């Protein structure tokens, strides 16, 4: 229960940051920073989970997050270079980074199935929050057509990851503890 609460508060913080910080919507350089940070945070969590996770399914999920989000970031970085956009840190990217740092710090204290559950709970909350930000803030605000197209292209990955994480979450809760 405590974990669930923590995950939910993370969602609320992120959603609040995404909505409040940009009354006028983020600029393209700010969106670029949000995209790169969002992916990097999940890659970092995946690397930690790959070394600490207990269940094989959770390890496989962690490897998938590293692979997929690295692929997205490679394309995002190439696009940003092509467009000569310099990613600009902003309250949402800072909030994402802090959320990622806090998550890692919390996960490092856990072991075994407690680690698995906390990691997967956070992955569910994280993907839901990023998906909400993509839909309500990032896609509507993106000015450059190619940047908008990239956001639209990566959206299904967040949907699939969210569903995958939810399935894992219910598997882990069935195993009980």
């Amino acid at each position, binding site marked *: 229960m405590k974990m669930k609460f923590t995950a939910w508060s993370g969602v609320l913080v992120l959603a609040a940051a995404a909505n409040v910080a940009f009354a006028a919507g983020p600029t393209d350089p700010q969106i670029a920073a949000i995209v790169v940070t969002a992916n990097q945070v999940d890659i970092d969590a995946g690397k930690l989970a790959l070394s600490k996770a207990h269940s094989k399914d959770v390890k496989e999920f962690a490897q998938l997050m590293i692979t997929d989000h690295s692929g997205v970031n490679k*394309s995002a970085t190439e696009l940003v270079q092509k467009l000569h956009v310099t990613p600009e840190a902003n309250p949402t990217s800072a909030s994402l980074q802090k959320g990622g740092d806090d998550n890692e710090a919390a996960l490092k204290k856990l072991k075994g199935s407690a680690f698995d559950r906390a990691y997967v709970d956070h992955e569910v909350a994280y993907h839901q929050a990023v998906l909400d930000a993509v839909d309500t803030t990032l896609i509507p605000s993106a000015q450059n057509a190619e940047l908008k197209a990239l956001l639209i292209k990566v959206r299904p990955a967040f949907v699939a990851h969210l569903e995958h994480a939810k399935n894992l979450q219910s598997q882990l809760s069935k195993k009980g503890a």
Partner: protein
Amino acid sequence: MPEARWTWAWGVAVAGLLLAGTAASTSPAADAPAGRTIVIENLQFNPQVLAVKAGERITWVNKDLFPHTATAGAKAFDSKAIAPNAVWTWVAQKPGTYTYVCAFHPTMKGTITVQ
């Protein structure tokens, strides 16, 4: 992203060559089936359901930003990882219905019927 464009173009070119190769080797008739293509994009197989004739060549083209697989049960076929912009080809020999998934993204499902 010139590099990505180039790679994508290369993937398409390879797919084109594969398809052209099939057409040339199977039949000289102009309207002979040149093989079939399934595009993997936005975490979907498109078309999701495909009917082919035995002996037809099916090529999966991965247009997503990360690897996918086309993996059927009962050891029918397994592409293993298909990198972004890469292609994988399978020749359907035995009639039957093959359901397959992406081993990495289990929400991705497809069906091939070999007649």
